[in-house]
């Protein structure tokens, strides 16, 4: 199915998709070899899983921002829903399922389902809005998710599952375990997230998004992005398609959140705040809206670079801010665009194409 669809695509488009898969696989093989031959420093090895998680986040947000043309500022919220539900699942399964990769897979699937449900519930009100309002409401939901998770208690004992809000009233029996502890988050997580698992998740995310984008629905997303009124007038169900993009994106973000969380021993809801949402937005904007490969590369570079340039770490967020502003000015202002095109030595070639 995938193959036939790719062959039917325009050649340029298909080439770009193959190139993306190829680069991701090649990067994985190189990193894995370097990692197993101890060529990679331990700090770099520790960053492989977060990089994969951020790549999936970039792909997922790109589906909303680049393909469907709506700005979501609460994407870290879906990541945290996935992180908490995934880790809780993994802890619950610890005794039943000793095989770690299977536990990780189930945890990520559960995380994706929970995040998709959250995406659907949030999507119902949010997708009726558009533009700036939509952006600010996604921001609001991101903050609401954060403060709800900060006040959520969840535990397990021989009597079953217990949860409570605001204060810990779960009253667990002896031998029970309080898994989510409000503002303290979850601690004592087994670090079962591995680089191969991260790689597989990136590949799955790419396949899902590429297949979706190059399907009838994907063309509908782009039609709605380019002209909502025209799309509506030819009978496209705007809400349905927007919801489809939003829920898919949320599910991917949830799986990424679970992967991310299981790389650390402790996670708290405050980790997934507005700054994280902006960080992911920077990946998407720097990589090019709608360009999956660009987002993936940006995610990798912007995660590794700050580690390598520790002495400039104070300037990191400032740099991100400048990146956002300059990218927008460079791609949207006619005069600056013209100026940049004159600097480009390959200008002739591009014009001929």
């Amino acid at each position: 199915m995938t193959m036939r669809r790719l062959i039917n695509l325009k050649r340029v488009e298909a080439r770009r998709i193959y190139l993306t898969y190829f680069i991701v696989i090649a990067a994985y093989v190189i990193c894995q070899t370097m990692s197993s031959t101890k060529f990679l420093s331990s700090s770099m090895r520790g960053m492989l899983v977060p990089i994969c998680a951020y790549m999936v986040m970039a792909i997922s947000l790109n589906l909303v921002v680049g393909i469907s043309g709506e700005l979501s500022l609460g994407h870290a919220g879906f990541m945290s829903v996935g992180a908490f539900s995934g880790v809780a699942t993994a802890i619950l399964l610890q005794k039943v399922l000793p095989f770690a990769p299977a536990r990780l897979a189930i945890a990520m699937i559960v995380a994706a389902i929970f995040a998709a449900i959250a995406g659907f519930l949030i999507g119902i009100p949010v997708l009726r809005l558009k533009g700036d309002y939509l952006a600010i409401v996604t921001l609001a939901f991101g903050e609401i998710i954060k403060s709800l998770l900060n006040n959520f208690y969840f535990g397990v004992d021989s009597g079953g599952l217990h949860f409570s809000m605001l204060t810990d009233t779960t009253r667990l029996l002896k031998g029970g375990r309080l898994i989510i502890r409000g503002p303290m988050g979850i601690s004592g997580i087994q670090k079962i997230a591995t680089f191969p698992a991260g790689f597989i998740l990136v590949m799955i995310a790419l396949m899902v998004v590429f297949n979706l984008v190059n399907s009838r629905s994907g063309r509908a997303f782009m039609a709605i992005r380019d002209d909502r009124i025209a799309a509506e007038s030819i009978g496209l169900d705007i809400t349905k398609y927007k919801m489809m993009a939003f829920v898919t994106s949320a599910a991917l973000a949830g799986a990424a959140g679970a992967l991310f969380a299981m790389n650390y021993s402790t996670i708290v809801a405050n980790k997934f705040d507005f700054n994280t949402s902006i960080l992911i937005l920077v990946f998407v904007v720097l990589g090019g809206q709608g360009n999956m490969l660009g987002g993936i590369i940006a995610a990798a570079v912007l995660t590794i670079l700050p580690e390598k340039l520790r002495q400039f770490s104070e300037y990191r967020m400032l740099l991100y801010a400048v990146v956002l502003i300059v990218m927008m000015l460079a791609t949207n202002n006619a005069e600056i665009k013209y100026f940049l095109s004159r600097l480009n030595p390959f200008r002739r070639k591009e014009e001929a194409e």
Partner: protein
Amino acid sequence: MIFLNFFISGISLGSIYAIIALGYTMVYGIAKMLNFAHGDVIMVGAYVCFYAVSRYGMNPFVGVVLAMAVCTSLGIVIERFAYKPLRQAPSLAVLITAIGMSYFLQNTALLLWSSNPKVFPSIIGRGSFKLFEGKLSVSHVTVLTIATCVIIMIVLSLFISKTKLGKAMRACSEDKGAAQLMGINVNATISLTFAIGSGLAAIAGALLCSAYPTLMPTTGSLPGIKAFTAAVFGGIGSIPGAFLGGLMLGVIEIFAKAYISSQLSDAVVFGVLIVVLLVKPSGLLGKQLQEKV
């Protein structure tokens, strides 16, 4: 009596939101953009005022005027270099630029003034009026905040409705092209709007930090977002709407803190935003806009 106390502190917080919301609502009305960096202009204003008063020992009111001057120029500069080149760009690009600008201000402040919280000196001391035999105490800052807000509202409403510049602003928000044809300098009018909004932000910054004296580079962002919520609540583009929305949001927030949970009060405020946008997207006093094809 406790209820009345909460109500008054709600009105006071709401007055600050209302002053901030004015900046959002005026800019949105004219430039049709959400100036995300507005909250951080508040923070810059508060820092300028802080340094003027506690480092250089100026009179607090001179400090506020200085902060207004700095913020006004900052607003004009931001508009000129970040937003003006994007006048024709899609709104998504403008919004991302504004978010970038907000981060730029926050992180510049972080480098200049460090992340250590500063204790802001109240601009008129910490005294309070005692009413009903001491059962009800209203601090001087509260009275000053509410009075300032009312004065600003009256002056601004008169400015918009009676003066020539105000008329130009109304014309620009109605139809920029037609305003240009009528000989109105649209760019200058937009700059003026940013200048007024940012100047008000400086006042809001000084008042906010007098009431809640911790000053950090991130001080402005949350009140900024809440004030935007207030602007949407009251109907974006409408000045009485910003006033009403700000006051109501302040009261809702304080009541949520007092009677529901202090940790969930932000969630309640954002919940209000979502409900308003769903039930009446044009806000309490906003105009219903028809979409033209």
